[in-house]
């Protein structure tokens, strides 16, 4: 069935909730209102207020309650109305959720999900891409889907997983990206990258919104005779190093792209792995394309200026190819 990215996420949640009584959702305005982005529209009617729980504006309590419920046999999915507000529940995630398996050998099967990303005039407080904070926290799995089918399949896998998973949705893709999505149960394993466009000249490694920029760049470059391979990481933790290295070993050239700000981001991690483990295969330096190191500004002129885009990726690929 053709679904938008948003519909596919909702479908994954719905199927998981239908199949498993232990799954419930907790968040702000997810019930009667159906969520700030209407992602859980109809959920309250189907699952009732106990399983679609409208919570007070208390991100720590929401995440903490999800941890506690998961320690007691449930599989909660906590929504952050915007992923930016995860900073208010940060301690619960990094201090409690991410250390429990290690300390207690007990599963914490929970998902924290919410809209991340910029490009929609969200202002500095509704546009963050904070995934690398959690990559660098230990004990948390981190997922950033770019396509509807993956979004559904990764959601279902995240819910079935026995570790805490932070699931970053990109709000700019919610209604923009559509594709055919398998119905019913559908699982995409965590920790597997996907070559979304095979190519032989340069590997572009990306995730989330940057995958679409990369594909756009690849289409442009095709006309210039450059055959770009685009890899969608999909899951940052666990990270599918093998697929990335294999691609770079074939092409000898790589560009790494993400929407998050450049410095201290996950792009550095990818480059470090490539340059350590595929060094002898590299014919050019690995180049990163990412947001300028600033908060995401509000005015469209400014926001466009700081965020990465297809043009920037295309330029980086050209430079890499020409090296």
């Amino acid at each position, binding site marked *: 069935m053709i679904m938008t990215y948003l519909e596919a996420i909702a479908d994954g949640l719905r199927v998981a909730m239908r199949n498993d009584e232990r799954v419930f959702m907790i968040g702000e305005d997810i019930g009667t209102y159906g969520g700030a982005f209407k992602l859980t529209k109809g959920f309250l009617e189907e699952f009732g207020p106990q399983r679609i729980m409208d919570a007070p504006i208390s991100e720590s309590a929401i995440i903490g309650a999800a941890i506690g419920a998961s320690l007691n046999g449930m599989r909660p999915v906590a929504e952050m109305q915007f992923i930016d507000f995860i900073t*208010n529940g940060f301690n619960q995630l990094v201090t409690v959720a991410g250390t429990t398996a290690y300390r207690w050998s007990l599963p914490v099967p929970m998902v924290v999900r919410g809209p991340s990303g910029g490009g929609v005039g969200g202002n500095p407080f509704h546009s963050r891409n904070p995934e690398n904070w959690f990559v660098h926290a230990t004990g948390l799995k981190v997922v950033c889907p770019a396509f509807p089918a993956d979004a559904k399949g990764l959601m279902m896998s995240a819910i079935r997983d026995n570790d805490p998973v932070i699931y970053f949705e990109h709000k700019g893709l919610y209604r923009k990206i559509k594709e055919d999505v398998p119905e019913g149960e559908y699982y995409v394993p965590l920790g597997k990258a996907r070559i979304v466009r095979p190519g032989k000249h340069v590997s572009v490694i990306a995730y989330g919104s940057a995958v679409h920029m990369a594909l756009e760049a690849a289409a442009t470059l095709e006309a210039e005779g450059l055959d770009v391979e685009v890899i969608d990481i999909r899951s940052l933790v666990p990270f599918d190093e093998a697929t990335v290295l294999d691609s770079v070993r074939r092409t000898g050239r790589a560009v790494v792209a993400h929407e998050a700000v450049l410095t201290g981001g996950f792009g550095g991690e990818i480059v470090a792995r490539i340059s350590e483990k595929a060094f002898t295969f590299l014919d050019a330096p690995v180049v990163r394309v990412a947001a300028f190191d600033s908060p995401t500004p509000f005015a469209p002129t400014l926001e466009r200026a700081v965020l990465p885009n297809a043009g920037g990726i295309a330029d980086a690929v050209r430079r890499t190819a020409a090296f």
Partner: protein
Amino acid sequence: MAKAKRPQQAPQAPVSSSTLSETERRELLRYMVMAREFDAAMLRLYRQGKAFGGVYSQLGNEAVSVGTAYALDTKADVLFPMHRNIGSHFVFGQDLDTLMVNHLARKGSQMRGTDGTGHYADPAKRIYGNVSHLGAMIPVAAGFVLASKMRGESCVALTYIGDGGAQVGEVHEALNFAAVQRLPLILVIENNQYAYSTPSSLEFACERLSDRALGYGIDGVTIDGTDVELVLATTRKAVERARRGEGPTLIETVTMRMRGHAEHDDFAYVPKAMLEEWAAKDPVERYAERLIADGVMSTESVKQLREETLAHMIAAIDRAVELPWPDAEEAFRNVFMDEVAQ
């Protein structure tokens, strides 16, 4: 261990005869009308499809933002407004064009386009806007007056939070800290019955949010937030306490959010009867009627005030909305202050 009960509160004498001067009363109405017509003007912009970003109506909250801010010394005190406090900006003397260009994030905005709405700061006007994360600025407001106090200056901070935002952990930490340090901080909890779509019953289980004052050892009171003179009188007492070094006060103002959370929200979840009930208590209409009844204003002068104010608002918005967006280069500046200095 009986269910904890609220302490006796001094009954609020219905303010039958005003203790305010006619000038003060006219000013209160004028600021409330400004808030009201600002809303109308923004709504018009939204309907024209020219608004960008959220448009948060403050309809029904005029008496709170105006009545509270009017109790302050706008030359010495400091305002940390929230998203439905446009009235407070006016009381603090914010000029309409500056406000609009900031709000709409156009070229010339004090935020250079990095942000919009009421998030700006204007130190000269003693206004420090909010961030989106609810409650995050309350510890900051506390720290601001802590600094004043350290220097022996008299500076009271006035800030706000919603019935929903009051559940954020930082609110607890900030109030407690301010109480321990006896800081001159006034926190107004604007209980307008809803937090986005969430009714109060799902946000908290206490009867009154001012009941929280007891747990910090500070003063707390719950008042009708549609009565501007009551709001003013209550806040003045809080300001006096603050100036005497007696610490923070928590004021819960009870009102109704008369529109959606923002304009995209059709607020279908709000019972119609509730809106009707509160429409009858409209803070602006009622105050205008009262001033007319008291002979302070005429029907005609009220009408004129409203029309002129709306016209002003629309003109300022129209000026601002025609301004260009800030230059893209602004995006690359001022991440750090040393760049500002350059």
